[in-house]
């Protein structure tokens, strides 16, 4: 008996040693692979490559979103290209990213998508911020039978019965998952009075409706003391903040994204309104850096990805990314916004790895093969298990909510993620869209 015990212990130590070595080896491997990665002027492979069209605004008021996700796509491409590329149609092909500027306008999005499909002959389309823009990209891709990975807009309506098409895959979480995560978080919290301030377009309205619905479910005693929708890219939030002060609200629920998110947070703290924001996009260093430790204390952020050090692969990603940021990157990627791979950018990297893994397993960029592989696929990403629901192409995953506090592990000049509340996927799984026959049991 003793001998087998001794044997068991040996195996165990060997295993742990192996783990340590591989992670060490692996981290060195990622470090080596990414050592020369420069997002400001990425290496563009030529010849027979897998072409991915990146649809996002690169000019106009929300131009910074293009810059934000540019680094995510190129990180994955650079990593995989350094490993020789992806085996497709029996050949190892490198990944090439081509920009398509939507200028935050539906019409330019359609033109850019068509130019990528017909002009540059891309294999896959990836994008786009702004649900109304993503819808146009999705429809254009389907028209020319191209796979469109809707990786950034999270409106449920994008994949409902009316807008669903089999060439589109929704990899981020959805509005209902976000709203349910926040409602779930507040189930055990004392706050009772909520004020809703969202952007005046389909995403803002849908998010508010879902949150009100789930809040009634989790907290029948909760009360909505006010509701407002401000135009996109609003400048002066003062009148709205004044209304909130008078309403006696305890929490402000807002789904605003950059640049509205930073304006809203900054102006509320400047005007002495220190209520917590229940939000999804107030997690980047620029927004938080402006309001400092007290200004960002108590913010409740829900996200599909939260930076942590549990999984060895995330630990490795954080380490390599931070090292490169401090040592190598130039304008604009050396700013405080990119110190760590955070929220939306990290999630984009995570789902892009998944996308390329699906392409490799499908062994081809032919849409039919990709659809067959991706539907119902379960992928162990470095941020938990991602499952692509077969009938409506929506990804189901655990989501995370965290109340910012100080001191936090990652930043010292503002409060940030510390304790993370995980919302299990079966709780937050979005309902199947009615009227979509594919989903009828």
């Amino acid at each position, binding site marked *: 008996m003793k001998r087998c015990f001794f044997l068991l212990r040996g195996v165990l130590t060997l295993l742990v040693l192996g783990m340590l070595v591989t992670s060490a080896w692996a981290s060195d491997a990622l470090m080596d692979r990414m050592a020369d990665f420069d997002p400001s002027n990425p290496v563009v492979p030529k010849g027979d490559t897998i072409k991915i069209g990146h649809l996002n605004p690169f*000019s*106009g*008021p929300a131009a910074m979103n293009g*810059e934000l996700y540019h680094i995510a796509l190129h990180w994955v491409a650079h990593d995989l290209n350094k490993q020789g590329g992806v085996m497709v149609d029996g050949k190892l092909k490198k990944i090439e990213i081509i920009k398509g500027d939507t200028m935050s306008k539906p019409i330019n999005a359609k033109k850019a998508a068509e130019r990528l499909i017909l002009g540059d002959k891309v294999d896959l389309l990836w994008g786009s911020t702004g649900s109304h823009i993503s819808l146009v990209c999705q429809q254009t891709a389907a028209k020319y039978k191209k796979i469109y990975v809707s990786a950034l807009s999270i409106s449920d309506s994008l994949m409902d019965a009316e807008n669903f098409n089999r060439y589109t895959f929704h990899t981020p979480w959805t509005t209902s998952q976000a709203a349910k995560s926040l409602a779930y978080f507040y189930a055990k919290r004392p706050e009772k009075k909520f004020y809703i301030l969202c952007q005046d377009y389909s995403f803002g309205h849908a998010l508010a409706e879902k949150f009100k619905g789930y809040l009634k479910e989790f907290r029948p005693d909760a009360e909505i003391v006010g509701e407002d929708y401000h135009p996109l*890219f609003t*400048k002066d939030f003062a009148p709205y903040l*004044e209304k909130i002060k008078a309403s006696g609200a305890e929490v402000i629920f807002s789904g605003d994204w950059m640049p509205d998110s930073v304006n809203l947070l900054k102006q509320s703290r400047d005007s002495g309104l220190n209520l917590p924001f229940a939000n999804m996009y107030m997690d980047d260093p620029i927004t938080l850096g402006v309001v400092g430790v007290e200004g960002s204390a108590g913010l409740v952020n829900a996200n599909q990805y939260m930076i942590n050090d549990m999984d060895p692969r995330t630990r490795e990603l954080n380490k390599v990314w931070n090292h490169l940021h401090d040592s190598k990157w130039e304008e*604009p990627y050396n700013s405080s916004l990119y110190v760590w791979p955070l929220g939306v950018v990290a999630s984009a990297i995570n789902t892009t790895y998944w996308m390329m893994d699906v392409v490799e397993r499908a062994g081809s960029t032919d849409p039919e093969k990709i659809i067959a592989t991706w539907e119902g696929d379960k992928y162990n990403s470095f941020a938990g298990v991602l499952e692509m629901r077969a009938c409506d192409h929506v990804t189901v995953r655990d989501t995370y909510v965290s109340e910012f506090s100080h001191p936090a592990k990652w930043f010292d000049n503002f409060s940030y993620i510390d304790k993370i509340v995980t919302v299990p996927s079966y709780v937050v799984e979005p309902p199947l869209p009615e009227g979509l026959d594919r989903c009828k049991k």
Partner: protein
Amino acid sequence: MDATTAMYVGQIMHGLAYGMLLFLVASGLTLIFGMMGILNLAHASFFMLSAYFCVSVIHMGGNFWLALLAAPIITAVIGVMVERFLLRGIHASGHIGELILTVGVMMVIMEAVQVFWGTDSHMISVPSALAGMVNIFGLQYPLYRLFVIFLALAILGLLVLFLFKTKMGMIIRAGVSDAEMVEALGINMPLVFMMVFAAGTWLAGVAGVAISPLLSVFPGMADQMGMDAFVVVVVGGFGSLLGAFVSALFFGLLNSFGIQFLPRIAPVLMFVFMVLVLSFKPKGLFGERE
């Protein structure tokens, strides 16, 4: 000071603050139009340009006050160059040529800003001396917004003094009613035009710097302010400073109370007023010149 009156006072103060900033921008616009008959559609772009200069000045180590001094002056210089080299030679094709040229200038400035300063929002923190709140009979009100109101009032006072008490002011007022006649009296009008254009752009520059700590500085900031200032000038009456002041306050308060009571219709109201005034009183409420 219970909640509702606090809200009313708060909204009034916001209305005044935004109205005052609107007046700074609109005053430049209406003076330039009054004097030279040019409606400078690029005026709001100078407002944004100055905000970006403020960002650069603070980046290069200067403080807010240096920026408040330097940025408007740099913007005024650029404004003068635009008037001198672009606007001056094209009176031939009449107002239409000038109007469309200012559209070109607006487009160039809006894009050039993104080339030099990038696309993301730049933050300017409220200067330490003005940070924090002040207690006005029970209401907590940000000190900085009060500063903006008084700054604008001070500039208005300066402007009125200059226009009504100095010789140059008299020339400018005469020029508003009949520029050719004043020129006939031997006054170097092109020089006066240049000075008025410089003053107008300087005013917009001051507003640009004053607003940056309140809002973030980003490429889209000119559109909203530009359209509001335009409505203020049209309703107030072209070339009339008083008109600009009254309608700037009116629309500032409308902006606050519109959102408070009828959020969906507030922006529409602004344009309904403008259409009504333009249709029935093309010269505007106080204007003398179409």
